Every structure is written in structure tokens, then in C-alpha cells.
């Protein structure tokens, strides 16, 4: 396993990883925390086109603007087969 850090926006649809860290203001971090989006949580990218992103965390589907999504760093193994 060779995990590297990627912002959510650079992950392809269907990829899964673990949230490593969230940069950004207190308000963003605490809003995301209330929805279960915190470091250590498993995250799956459901949709990632040009517009906003949809991720699945803790059995909750969350739509995020690209600006917000790019602040979430995910530990992800690029050689991951499944996805």
C-alpha cells in the first residue's frame, strides 16, 4: 500500500480513501464536522465533473462546491483496483 495525499477534486468518481485533513476556516471545519466530514472518516467520491462534487461520508451524501472540496485532503492509494 502506497498512499498519497490528494484533494477530493482530483479524485476520480468511485474512488475511496480516508480523509487526512481539512484546511480552511473554523466555520468550514465545524460545518463539515457536523455532517460527519472529519479527518479519519472514509470518503467515496460519487460525482466529480466540472461543477460541484458529491461525496459519500458516514452514509451521508454531501454536495460540495469545488472550492470547499479542494480543501479536503484524502489519503488514497493510486494503485487501488476497486473503484
Amino acid at each position, binding site marked *: 500500500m502506497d498512499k498519497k495525499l490528494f484533494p477530493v477534486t482530483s479524485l476520480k468518481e468511485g474512488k475511496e480513501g480516508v480523509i487526512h485533513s481539512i484546511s480552511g476556516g473554523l466555520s468550514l471545519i*465545524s460545518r463539515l464536522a*457536523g455532517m460527519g466530514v472529519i479527518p479519519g472518516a472514509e470518503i467515496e467520491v460519487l460525482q466529480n465533473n466540472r*461543477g*460541484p462534487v*458529491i461525496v459519500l461520508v*458516514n452514509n451521508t451524501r454531501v454536495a460540495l*462546491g469545488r472550492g*470547499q472540496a479542494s480543501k479536503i485532503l484524502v489519503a488514497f492509494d493510486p494503485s487501488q483496483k476497486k473503484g
Partner: protein
Amino acid sequence: MNNRGKLIIVLAGQPNVGKSTVFNVLTGLSQHVGNWPGKTVEKKEGIHVYDDVEMRIVDLPGTYSLTAFSEEEKIARDFVINERPDVMVLIANAAALERSLYLLSELLLLDSPVLVALNMVDVAEGQGIHIDINSLQNCLGIPVIPMVARKNKGIKEILSQVILLADGKLKYNPRIPDISQDHRDIFLKLIKLTKEHIPAPYTVRWAVTKLMEGDPEILRMIEDTMPVDKWSEIKSLFLKHEDSLRAVVGGRYDWIETVIRDSVSRFKRGQVLATDRLDHVLTRPLFGIPALLGALATVFFLTYKVGSPMQRLLEGLVKSFARWAGPLLSWAPGWISGIVLDGILGGAGTVLTFLPILLIFFTSMAFLEDVGYMARAAFVMDRFMHTIGLHGKSFLPMFLGFGCNVPAVLGTRIIESKRARLLTIFLAPFVPCTARLAVLTLVAAAVFRERAAFISWSLVAVNILALGFSGMLASRLFLRGEPMPFIMELPLYHKPNPKTIGMVVWNRTKAFVKKAGTVILGFSILIWLMSNIPGGRIEDSVLGRLGRLLEPLGAFMGLDWRMLVALLGSFVAKENSIAMLGVLYGAGEKGLRNVLPDMMSHASALSFLVVLMLFIPCAATVSVIKQEIESWKWFLFSIIFMLLISLGGGIAAYRLALLFGI
């Protein structure tokens, strides 16, 4: 009835956990929707009597957490802290227990006892999530009751436990999450420093936790009450520990993890849910946009196919009622029957005939909201809304505007950011409401005959373009700021719940009828007086003279004084302008449809319609804009802006029409 006082019960819960379903079941029609004092956030409460105990049920705003980053969160916690409810019921989502427990971890820091109502256990089981209620109860140290609110299961159990808990007859020994290990020292230090300075009713533990979360309000409060030297000590502590928010959040999730590990078991992982399959289509641009257009077209089709005949029927009823009531008023002086028949029945009465159209429109919208589709519509629209400086969430209130601008303006409350809300309120009146569409179709059909449909659609398009243009202008010139964060949960799709839909429709319709009964009624009478004083012909009345006074201005747009008066009258309610045109052009027996083509040139009619569609919104909308915008400056700016856009549009339409010989 029991001789003790009413119990105050608070319903707390994150969005999309079925909180409003529970609230509706408990309060039914006893519920009262108002505002939190001095705030533009909706406050819902009602009464429920169970086992001879009267309970005042207060629905807290649905929030993900209780840190004061939004108005709702501030209100929710201020209410709990100041009113000290007897019991707080946390509605938790069994299928996503982790984040419901996050809110619980915040509630446990407050003083009132909490009971967990574990909702949607059926959905969770269906997804292979099994929750052991006994271990959950033991881990949390507080009562937990499973329920399925949609099927009315578990409500009675909750109520009887609420009463026992309020009476102190239940074991209540909550386990409260700690701060992460690495920050426990600073937490204890902060407690020591602040202990004597936290004003009641706040508790030290709660205030220090909020301090570490960087809660702006508590920071300010403590800075004000602390001696300067201690405050600077605290500040230097924070400089060394910038990540204290992480420590609080981390501590909470450690606690959540322990609870989940002991009480939740998952099997059948990796199944593809119906929601994901639907989203695969509905949230992608390729299919999502046509699907959205299709859904909206269906809403319009239903609204007008079913609603319009009913509206005409009611209109006929109002007219025959007026004919029947006329002789009954023959005893009274002319001005009384004038006010009653023409003012009240003709003005406010006509407005109320639009009720069926609104009912159908609101019902279809509430249906789309309830099944979970509107969040997807907001998602699909997000990229378009960005060009006007907004994001997807503003789409829902704006679309409501096609029914009536009043609920549209009120509906902007779902938008967290103040700036985005202001901008959405500012743009909402550009969405043509049913009343304006009614005037548009009537005048276009009379004057433009076979080209009526084309003219009508073009004018609706003009409004949408004006909305887009104003949004781009306003977001770039007057309301600049940080790009707003877009974070929105996409709830699971589910079967529609008639009761929830019914309550939404009921509350929105009530808001409209209230406005028709107060603001519109008042202005109807005022306009009647203005067009009848001094008595005699309408030409000589206050309104007629005002119209003539403005005639030079009207000449730019090809509008004679009658059309100007009709536009002024449209301020009461847009559909009023039809009645006024009828009176002013002396339509009488021949009917307005037959008179208009001789009276209005094509260019003038086009200009009239453009101005009408973009004009200052009706009195009811103006009054809610004033109420919601909370600033005289922006209110006046918005009204003057609409006025300039509509007059400019009228001039442009008239000149272009003459140029191209339409």
C-alpha cells in the same frame, strides 16, 4: 388536566432526520409558525397533551451543530440556555448515527436532560445497519427509543418516557465526550482561568468548549467579562494551540466511535442504493438538466391545466356574489357599497381567486421537496446560479416565485450566508408570479391574437434575462464578497409523506391569505378611495390626476395615462391592473378582450407588458421584502432598481417595437 405547569419540550435534530414529521404528528393543526423574536428565522411550536400532561413543543431550527456560525445555530442554543426546557428530544437518524451523535454531544453540554429518539430504524435495517438499543442506551447513559415517525411508530413510547424523564424518574447519567488527550491540559487551564468569569446561565464547561471551537459570540462575551491580564493569557494560550477546534471535534468523534463500536453492527456492505442509482441520472448535467426542465414543466402544466379553470370558476362566483350583494347594500351611501363591492370584492376578492392555482403549485413543489428531489435540482442549478453570484440553494426559493413572490422571499431563509440571502431576495421579484402571468396572457391574447403565445414566452424570457443581468451586476458591483461556500446534504429519496406536504402547503398558503387579508385588503380600499375622491369621473380623481401628471413620462414608453394608472394599481396586486384597465377603457358589456385591440397599439401594449412584468412588486411582496431584508438602504435600493429597470425596459421595448414596426 394535571395541576402542574406545562412542560416545555424541545425537538432538536439535524436536517433530513424526520424532525418535521415528528413535529407534525405531535402538534397537528395546533402548530403556530412565527418568527423567533427579532429574527427572520422561522419558529414553530404547538401543544400536545399526553396522559393529561400538557406539553409545549418547540421545534428548534434544524442545524448540524450548535456553534454560532449561523443564525439558526445561535437561536437554537440561546433558546435551550435561556428557557431551560424540561426535556430535549434529539431526533437521530439511525442510518447515519455518527453525525446525529455529533449534535447530541453538543446538547449534552447544556443543562436540560436529553432523550434520543432513534428515527428511521427501518431504513437503517434495510441498509444492513443494526443498532442494539440497550447497548446504545448504556453507552450514552441516557434513554434511547427507536421509532419510525413516518409510520407513527414509537411516538407514544417517546412521550411517556419524556414525562418520566421530566419528573426525574428515569436513570439519567450521560457520558459526555472529552477533549482529545493532547489538549486536555489546556482545557483544564482554561477552566481554571475562566471559572469565576462566566456569566449565568452559561456553564463553565460549555463556555470553555465553545472558546476552543472559536465560537465568535462566546469569544466576544468572555473578552468583555474577563480582566485584561487573564484575557491576554488566554489569547497567548490559543496562539500556541491554533488547532484547539480539531481537539474538540476529535474528542467528540472519539466518543462517537466508542459508542458506535459497541452498539452498531453492519452487514450487507457495498450495496448500491436506489438513491445512488437515481442520482446517477438526476445529478448529471446530461440527463439532470432535461429531467429538471421536465419536472418543472410538469409542475406548470398541472398548475395551469387544473388551476386556471378553478380560478375562472371562483372569479365567476365572486362576480355573482357581488351582483347578489349589490342590492343588499342599496340602503348604504354609495361610498360604502363602492368600497365593499369594487374595493374589497373586486380587489382582495380577485386576489383570493388565485388560491387554487397557488395550492396546486405549492403542493407540487412541496412534493418535489419532500421526496428529496429539490436538493438535486439545487445541485444541478448550482453552476448556472454561480454566474449570478449565487449558488444552487437559491434556486428553490426563486422557483417558488413563479407561484407567488411572497413565499419566495420568505423561502430565502434556507440560505445561510447573509449576502447570498440579500441577493436572492433582491432578485426574487424578477421571477414572474401567477398574477403577472395572468395579466400577461390576457392582454397578449387580446392584442396580439395569434402571436400571443410567442409574445408571452418572450416576455417571460425577458424577465429571466433581467434577473440574470441584475444578478451579475449586483454581485459584481454592490454585493461583492467571498465566494460563498456551498455545502448541502443530498438526502435519501423516499416516498412522499402526505402529512408533511400538507403542512408545508398549509403554512405557505396561510402566509399568502394573511397578506391578502391585511396588506392587499388595505391597499384595495386605498386605491378605491384614490380613484373615487373627489367623486364623479375617475379622470378627475386623485389617481386619474396622478396618471395625467405622469403622462409626459409615459409618452417615452408609449403609455397613456390609463395604462399608467393601471400600472400604479398593479402595486396593490398585479391582477388588479386588469380590473383597472376594464374600468378606465369603459369595457363594460363589451368585455376588455374586445376593447383592448382598439385602444392599445402593438408597441404600446408590448411596452405596457414589459413594464408590468418588471415593475415594483405588489404590496404584499414589498412588505415581506422590507421585513426580511432588515435594512432600509437595501430595501429602497431594491425598489428603485426595479423601478428603473422596468421603465428602462418599457422605453426600450416601445422604441424597438416602433423601429421594427411590430
